[in-house]
């Protein structure tokens, strides 16, 4: 076997385990694991990399010099926020607004709750404030929505408040005043005052101005994001520097980048580190986009079933949708994030009979990592979807996670019988099959509505299924939807980490513009608008250039994309539109932009709903800048013919299917060769997932080790 030459290193530092994913120049990879060491992450990280590299008989010292890209994603920042162990932050807001963290705009008391609980008001509760009331001060002074000064900043007042906060022993100061994204002068003045006071005391603590970090409309998300930048992201900076230092000590010369929520990776010296707060599920979407491109498609539905949830993201025309105001850990934020819709329906979702209606309910809560009743060590007493799969013979109780965990089928059967089948007076297998059918029908509903609500049809898309539970149910939740193609990577397990390695080196910045285009605007006004929009974009480009100049890439090779968020004047929701031209020059360019908005609007809502009578508002300008970095290659194998090799057959198993016991062939997913075609009913197993091919369907493994699931013509429509 050829000696492996490591090229890309992707690290996922979770709360308990740090996973490392190393790719060589042929796209082959290894995964390593080690315990996370929160006090100095670099220790666990290097251990994990060594664990991976020893599978290739090499060491970090030997392999690191060849690595060209290192991507880090982790949950430590998020954990710091969740466990409320961040810096001691002081906050200055506009007078009268001091109770932001107590009121939480109401909405933060139920963010992330299931629909049932949102209606069930008694369950709503306030979060522990990340900054207690005594460290939040208001100062007099007001800028209005147009950026005009209505009340000058009362400097004496500001001085007093900063002094009081410094007396509280704060470690960082955040300033977030109303409408500062329009006119930052008051915030900047407070910054100066704070600087003077700190000089007097001979101290130096960082000051975070919302207008400098996240200059967008919506004061509460802006405040939250600025405070989180100080509270949770600032301490991570030191950690990341330690990590880079360790890489250097191991002779790694590569640049370390961090996965950011907008779907690109950013340098560790980036100013706005809170953008990297969440990265976990994003990897999968990036990986899916990369895969789809490789096989020549720009429109993908990414679906991922884990233990707790079903996550769905759309890539349309090569771009994913971005949410400008996402919520995370019960905070409203203003960092752009890839839109991933998540519903509480995973393989660990609990199954219960609603005592009120006598019907089966799936979730929304789940056993998560505790699998289900079938795993005695998990001490779960309520049956889950996995219990049903085990009961029906779809999952092998002796080969869960490659046999690492032994499941007890009888326990699962007993629980389903006692708690579900008997109360419904039906046979236990019928009950289990019915539940799985219901589960997959629900998922099919989510998939269909996600695609249709964007104004497309499934036939416009390729569907990709990954995650531990995706391939088990993919046939069930796609049948009859008529996707162009249904893909399951044969290496579904490491898919998220793989995706992280596929991330572009990309920064994304946005600025609130709020420019009106009244109906019947003349060309002069349109040209003036173009000039103003260009000014905003130039400002954003300057930010991107500044970030890239901190890296070895410099600013020459940056590829920019410009987007605008536009809405009909007077409406509340805007849409993100890719600008047809890189630079808006003429009235014609602006018309093209508005035209493209109208087309998108007509597709997403309805053509008849277009309402240009009052004109348009261009609410936000967005610029992304990326440079080329090395990405993992797709595996590329020579086709070996349609018949699977003898070694791939593991045997046969009885599976309950459509009311009868049938014999299913069991295959080893890893032993299949490219070109192999598998007819249903068959079950393919790998340590990380199980791929079910129903009767009347086939799966073909292509040269990139992607399965294509196809239904026979007469099976398609029912």
């Amino acid at each position, binding site marked *: 076997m050829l000696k492996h030459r490591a090229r890309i290193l992707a690290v996922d530092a979770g709360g308990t385990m740090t996973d490392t994913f190393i790719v060589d120049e042929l796209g082959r990879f290894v995964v390593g694991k080690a315990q996370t060491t929160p006090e100095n992450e670099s220790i666990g990280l290097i251990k994990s990399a060594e664990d991976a590299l020893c599978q290739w008989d090499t060491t970090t010292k030997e392999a690191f010099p060849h690595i060209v890209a290192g991507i880090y994603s982790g949950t430590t920042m998020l954990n710091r926020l969740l466990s409320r162990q961040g810096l001691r932050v002081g906050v200055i807001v506009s007078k009268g607004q001091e109770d932001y963290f107590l009121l939480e705009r109401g909405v933060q008391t139920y963010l992330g709750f*299931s629909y*049932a*609980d949102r209606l069930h008001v008694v369950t709503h*509760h306030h979060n522990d404030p990340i900054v207690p009331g005594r460290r939040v001060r208001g100062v007099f002074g007001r800028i209005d929505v147009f950026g005009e000064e209505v009340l000058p900043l009362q400097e004496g007042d500001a001085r007093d408040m900063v002094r009081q906060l410094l007396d509280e022993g704060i470690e960082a100061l955040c300033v977030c005043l109303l409408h500062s994204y329009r006119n930052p002068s008051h915030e900047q003045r407070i910054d100066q005052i704070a600087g003077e006071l700190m000089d007097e005391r001979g101290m130096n603590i960082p000051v975070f101005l919302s207008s400098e970090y996240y200059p967008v409309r919506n004061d509460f998300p802006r405040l939250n994001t600025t405070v989180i930048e100080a509270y949770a992201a600032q301490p991570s900076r030191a950690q990341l520097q330690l990590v880079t230092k360790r890489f250097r000590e191991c002779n790694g010369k590569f640049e370390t980048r961090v996965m950011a929520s907008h779907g690109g990776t950013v340098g560790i010296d980036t100013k706005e580190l809170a953008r990297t707060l969440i990265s976990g599920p994003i990897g999968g979407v990036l990986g899916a986009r990369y895969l789809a491109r490789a096989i020549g498609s720009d429109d993908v539905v990414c679906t991922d079933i884990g233990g707790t949830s079903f996550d769905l993201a759309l890539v349309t025309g090569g771009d994913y949708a971005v949410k400008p105001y996402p919520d995370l850990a019960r905070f409203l934020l203003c960092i752009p994030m890839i839109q991933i819709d998540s519903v509480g329906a995973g393989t660990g979702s609990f199954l219960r009979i609603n*005592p009120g209606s006598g019907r089966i309910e799936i979730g929304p*809560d789940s056993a998560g990592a505790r699998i289900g009743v079938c795993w005695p060590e998990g001490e779960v007493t309520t049956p889950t979807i996995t219990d049903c799969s085990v009961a029906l013979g779809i999952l092998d109780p002796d080969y869960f996670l490659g046999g690492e965990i032994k499941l007890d089928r009888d326990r699962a059967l007993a629980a389903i019988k006692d708690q579900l089948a008997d109360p419904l007076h039906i046979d236990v297998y019928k009950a289990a099959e019915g539940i799985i059918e219901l589960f997959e029908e629900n998922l099919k509903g989510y998939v269909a509505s996600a695609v249709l609500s964007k104004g497309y049809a499934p036939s416009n898309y390729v569907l990709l299924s990954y995650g531990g539970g995706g391939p088990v149910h993919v046939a069930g939740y796609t049948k009859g939807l008529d996707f162009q193609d249904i893909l399951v990577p044969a290496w579904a397990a490491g898919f998220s980490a793989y995706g992280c390695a596929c991330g572009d080196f990309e920064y994304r910045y946005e600025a609130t513009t709020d420019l009106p285009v009244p109906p019947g605007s003349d060309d002069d006004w349109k040209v003036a608008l173009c000039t103003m929009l260009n000014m905003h974009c130039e400002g954003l480009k300057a930010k991107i250039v500044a970030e890239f100049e901190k890296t070895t890439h410099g600013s020459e090779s940056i590829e920019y994309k410009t987007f605008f968020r536009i809405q009909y004047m007077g409406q509340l929701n805007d849409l993100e539109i890719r600008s047809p031209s890189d630079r808006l020059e003429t009235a014609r360019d602006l018309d093209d932009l508005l035209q493209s908005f109208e087309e998108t609007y007509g597709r997403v809502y309805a053509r008849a709903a277009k309402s240009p009578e009052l004109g348009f508002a261009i609410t936000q300008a967005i610029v992304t800048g990326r440079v080329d970095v090395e990405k993992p290659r797709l595996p590329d194998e020579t086709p070996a013919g349609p018949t699977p090799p003898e070694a791939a057959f593991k045997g046969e198993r009885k599976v309950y299917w459509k009311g009868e016991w049938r014999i299913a062939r069991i295959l080893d997913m890893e032993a299949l060769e490219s070109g192999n075609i598998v007819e249903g009913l068959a079950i393919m197993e790998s340590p990380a997932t199980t791929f079910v091919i129903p009767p009347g369907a086939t799966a073909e493994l292509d040269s990139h080790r992607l399965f294509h699931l196809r239904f026979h013509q007469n099976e398609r429509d029912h």
Partner: protein
Amino acid sequence: MTTYDKKTLENLWEGNLSSGELRPIQSQFKDQDRFWKFLEYCQERVGWSDRILLPLQPHLFVVQKPDGRRVNKCDCGFEFGDYRQNWKLEAQVFVRDTDETLQEIYPPMMHCDPEWMVLREFYCPGCYSLLEVETVPPCYPIIHDFKPDLETFYREWLGKEFK
């Protein structure tokens, strides 16, 4: 079926659960055995042996006396008489109907106008626990909060014949 151990129910009753522990209980289907477990818990806590038939509200229970009478009883042991009678008629009453008495519990200008509304506090004559507060216009008749139909409740809601 949802079910909780007695310790959890005790903590729930005492208000010792964190919001993280409390929310799943609020979100899930009601535990079907709650009534019996809670009854058992109440019986253990009180210092007398009459059988509790129904917890009425904090401190108060409907109990079965050995001679067959069913009475309202405070956890201190004071008995208010037949459970179909309004126990408030046997309680000690303190009426807050002046600015002075209302301001003992409210800041000035934050309380009701005593000409329009008064507070009536009912105390147990045995242990002086505050049992109930009525907010009513002056002279309003004493409210009979709850007159349980024990037979029907046991038979149709708990599915058990009432003896």
